[in-house]
């Protein structure tokens, strides 16, 4: 029986009913400008501060360390360019990052390279994990910032953030992490883990698109992102996206309150999915099998191409994604898969399935029922598969 299975939650998630319910009054009832004096304005101000607390509590930060943004990319740009420009005044023009960051980080540091900054791109090895000792070895006198993602968006590998934080603290280098994929899936404690800046996004955890936040540790000198009014303590001016921020607060509160049971349930589903799909011959799991996000599945199936696999899955009602060239919009497959050492021809045949708490065991059953048939259908018409079979006969 055909089902509809949304399994691309690392791309975005549906807004949850609780989040939507909390947001709606701020469009029609409490529509005032939070900067206004009268009651509909004041009524919109309070929930902003509640949301700030909800976000802060989830990260063990102080509320005044949370600055709302339009999303993860904006937070990444602000964190990296802000610190880079601030510390360049002191002659610090070196940034350390990894080869498989999200483009919001990679393209930002590349833009800084054009301005004359030096960037070190750390290896992520076959398991897709940065080594803290590599971070330490890369730190120089003029290092301004280390930016390493908390968890990778494609292969879901969770980075040793506490260890990297300790290295940065030891060498008095600022540490930023893009935690867009990790928030709500991994226990984050910015104090304990020595994180100076952290980016997050609402729409990955059932809040709406267009809202996110940057955590900036107290006392850090940070240039304003948007000059204008006094919103976000003058650092990011512009009338607040009140409803979106309220949604983010509720989503963060819920994600952190349910983290334990949810990640346990998702990990089981993920492992069942990986075990089932691994029965397909000449398949491989991408990224560390254990140190990975609870809902992340990323596998390659030799001899087929990712986009055609996605289209066939879509016909069967399953929404997923791939790191093939055809889905990346360029001729090269995903930089993440190349960074973990996959050859081009194998990287083209990747499939990412990302589950959220709205997925069920029945969804996993259905994916495992449909996937092997699609892989063998595409292999039957693939001259590359003929060649693989011939070479391994």
């Amino acid at each position, binding site marked *: 029986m055909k089902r509809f299975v949304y399994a691309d939650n690392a791309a975005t998630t549906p807004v949850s009913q609780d989040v939507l319910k909390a947001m709606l009054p701020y469009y029609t009832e409490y529509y005032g400008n939070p900067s206004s004096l009268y009651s509909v304005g004041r009524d919109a101000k309070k929930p902003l501060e509640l949301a700030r607390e909800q976000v802060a509590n989830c990260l063990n930060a102080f509320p005044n360390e949370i600055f709302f943004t339009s999303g993860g990319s904006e937070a990444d740009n602000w964190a990296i360019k802000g610190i880079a420009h601030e510390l360049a005044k002191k002659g610090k023009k070196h940034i350390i990052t990894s080869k498989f960051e999200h483009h919001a980080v990679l393209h930002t540091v590349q833009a800084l390279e054009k301005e004359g900054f030096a960037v070190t791109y750390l290896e992520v090895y076959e398991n897709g994990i940065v080594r803290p000792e590599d971070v330490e070895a890369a730190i120089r006198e003029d290092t301004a910032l280390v930016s390493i993602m908390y968890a990778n968006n494609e292969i879901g590998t969770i980075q040793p953030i506490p260890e990297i934080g300790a290295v940065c603290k030891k060498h008095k280098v600022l540490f930023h992490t893009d935690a867009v994929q990790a928030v709500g899936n991994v226990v984050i404690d910015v104090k304990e883990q020595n994180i100076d800046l952290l980016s997050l996004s609402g729409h990955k955890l059932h809040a709406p698109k267009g809202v996110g936040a940057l955590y900036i540790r107290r006392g850090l000198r940070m240039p304003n992102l948007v000059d204008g009014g006094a919103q976000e303590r003058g650092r990011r001016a512009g009338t607040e996206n009140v409803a979106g921020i309220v949604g983010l607060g509720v989503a963060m509160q819920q994600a952190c309150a349910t983290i334990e049971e949810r990640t346990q349930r998702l990990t089981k589903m993920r492992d069942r999915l990986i075990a089932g799909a691994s029965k397909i011959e000449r398949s491989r799991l991408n990224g560390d099998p254990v140190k990975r996000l609870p809902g992340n599945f990323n596998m390659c199936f030799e*001899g*087929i*191409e*990712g*986009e*055609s696999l996605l*289209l066939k899955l879509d*016909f069967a009602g399953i929404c997923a994604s791939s790191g*093939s*060239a*055809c*889905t990346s*919009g*360029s*001729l*090269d*497959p995903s930089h993440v898969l*190349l960074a973990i050492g996959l*050859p*081009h*021809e194998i990287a*083209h045949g990747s499939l990412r399935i990302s589950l959220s708490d709205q997925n069920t065991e029945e969804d996993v059953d259905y994916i495992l029922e449909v996937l092997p048939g699609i892989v063998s259908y595409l292999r*039957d*018409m*693939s*001259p*590359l*598969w*003929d060649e693989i079979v011939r070479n391994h006969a």
Partner: protein
Amino acid sequence: MAYSEKVMDHFANPRNVGELAGANGIGEVGNSKCGDIMRMYIKVENNIIQDVSFKTFGCGAAIATSSMATELIKGKTIEEALQLTNSAVMEALDGLPPVKVHCSVLAEQAIKAALKNYYENQGIDPTPFIGEIPECHHDHGDSCGCGSCE
């Protein structure tokens, strides 16, 4: 990515898929690094392409253009098949997204490669009829080296 209904139809129900028994011309173009390989099989009798089939490793557009190309040359003379351009394949599919145009180029080249192989099998030098088929190879840079991919 928006594919036309025709592209989706040829992807979902590809025509003439598989190997062709009694083929007297087989051509293969593309490479696995670029993410697409097309292999075209033809059976020529009395200068007419009596039958044709394909096998393709590639994206939705690669499979759809292969399928459409086989339909467009089935029953045609060699001369007619050689005149088939990638634009004609695209037109027949109601267009392709810009990043997928190279798939139609591959389809055109696959037909030429199969005809080249047919001539060779007949002991005839194919060069005067077909000329050089550019090989689509790209290094890990931004642009494809085959010239026709842009």
